[in-house]
């Protein structure tokens, strides 16, 4: 076997391994989606059924019982809104920290992260009272604010990481040309770190999307998100695994599709090899 053949074989094994790992990771989700097309009786069959006559009855019942579109829309608004606010605040800050680090930068970042250390259930009453006094119960605004603040430290830290990967030489070159800070961020940092910003945004959106504590405690009917939609189908008295699978498939479908569309962006931009 020549080196080239050996290299080829190695590559092939790597591809097979990648697919194998991906399938294992994806399997529980595949199983959930599959279960969503079963009847409740089929869903508990022993041994579990792989082949069965699919039914749409779970989806039909969900359609009859709840207003999926409203929940989904609230989820979109609150998670994209919260993320946008967090990014807006974080991008300039992370930029300043990444390109002008001082001996305190690390401490500031760590302190920011430490604001997340209080578990939500421990801080329930303070936030609840604040929302109550401010008259923000059951509004999308309160969720946007909370999501932005809760995710801000994480967004900061991840952006900081990606910005640090941009070679300083590029910025220095542009500064010689007298570019303003605003243009520097907009025309150089943002495009170069686009993949990083995209994956940060995606992460933040997912975290907001799946946030199930505040979105349930602070909303009733107008602003409830998909987590409340899932909660309304979860653990009733009676079999529910097929229905909750369908609900959950619906609840994560938009974000999976979004992730699929975004995945190309995720790895674009951060290729500085040629510039160096």
């Amino acid at each position, binding site marked *: 076997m020549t080196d080239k053949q050996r290299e080829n074989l190695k*590559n092939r094994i*790597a*591809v097979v391994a*990648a*697919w194998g*790992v*991906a*399938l294992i*990771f*994806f399997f*529980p*989700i595949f*199983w*959930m989606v599959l279960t969503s097309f079963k009847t409740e009786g089929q869903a508990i*069959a*022993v*041994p*579990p059924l792989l082949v069965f006559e699919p039914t749409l009855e779970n989806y039909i019942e969900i359609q009859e019982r709840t207003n999926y579109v409203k929940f989904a829309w609230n989820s979109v608004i609150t998670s994209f809104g919260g993320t946008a606010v967090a990014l807006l605040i974080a991008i300039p*800050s992370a930029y*300043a920290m990444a390109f*002008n680090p001082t001996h305190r930068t*690390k401490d*500031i*970042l*760590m302190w920011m*992260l*430490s*604001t*997340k*250390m*209080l*578990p939500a*259930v*421990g*801080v329930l*009453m*303070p936030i609840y*009272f604040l929302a109550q006094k401010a008259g923000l119960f059951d509004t999308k605004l309160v969720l946007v604010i909370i999501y932005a*603040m809760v995710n*801000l430290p994480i967004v900061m*830290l*991840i952006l900081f*990481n990606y910005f*640090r*990967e941009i070679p300083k030489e590029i910025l220095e070159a542009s500064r010689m040309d007298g570019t303003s*800070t605003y243009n520097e961020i907009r025309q150089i940092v943002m495009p170069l770190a686009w993949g*990083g910003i995209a*994956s940060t945004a*995606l*992460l933040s959106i997912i975290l907001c999307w*799946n946030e*199930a504590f505040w979105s349930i405690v602070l909303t009733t009917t107008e602003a409830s998100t998909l*987590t409340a939609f899932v909660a309304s189908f979860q653990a009733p008295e009676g079999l529910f*695994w097929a229905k909750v699978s369908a609900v959950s498939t619906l609840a*994560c479908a938009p974000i999976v599709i979004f992730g*699929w569309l975004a995945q190309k962006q*995720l790895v674009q931009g*951060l290729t*500085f*090899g040629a510039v160096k």
Partner: protein
Amino acid sequence: MNRTLVRLLQAPSIILLLLWMIVPLSMTLYFSTIRYNLLYPEREGFIGLENYRFFWTDAAFFPALMNTLVLVGSVLIITVVLGLAISVLIDRPFRGRGIVRVMLISPFFIMPTVSALVWKNMMMDPTTGLFAAMWNAMGWQPIEWLQDMPLFSIILMVSWQWTPFAILIFMTSLQSQDQEQKEAATLDGAGFWSQFYNLTLPHMARPISIVILIQMIFHLSIFAEIFVTTSGGPGVQSTNLTYLIYIQSQQAFDVGVASAGGVFAIILANIVAIFLIRAVGKTLTV
């Protein structure tokens, strides 16, 4: 860039987070020193450290502390190692890489309660679950996952959910690795491991420490997976600090004790953070 501008750019995030921290934190500190049970509105008054003493002297406190640390530690190790291995594996372009990427990230899209339901009832149930069917097919006795290894089962579920997070960060960071350097190393005859150790790992130091720090925060307060699957049992084998706080906050409705528990959680998180920063934090600003 002048220092005023640097400060100005940093100011909004720092000020907002300061407010976000100080207001709830001071309220929590205040609540933790008063008698404050939602179900007994007439009972009030300053009681010093009584709430702390009550939380601390719970027989479940130390087991819960240990479980919290084991949970955080194991999940961190599993997710970082797996995440690194997988993102290196999918670093090079190949057919269907886009699909593979989305499949690998997708567990992160599932809400924790749902993931716990799927794992508990459809995968791990010793009679109706898929694993039981697989074990039976092999002629083995099915494992009673949640009864015999409750904490491990929860570690498994959480790792499944969070490895994608590590993959997402790592695969983006790997893209910025200097390819010329790697090619040069290959020409010099450096093998995969030598390249990984000398080039990739140093390049990934910062992303790794960031993944560790962020995940730590989330794993210290794991709740849904425990609540749905084991309710902290058998005994207190899968009870963590957050679960203890939940019992005081949402079952006893004792805001005072729950706040004291919250303060313990902050202290623990800070201790863990100090250790982690010692270990990995210095790579942050490098």
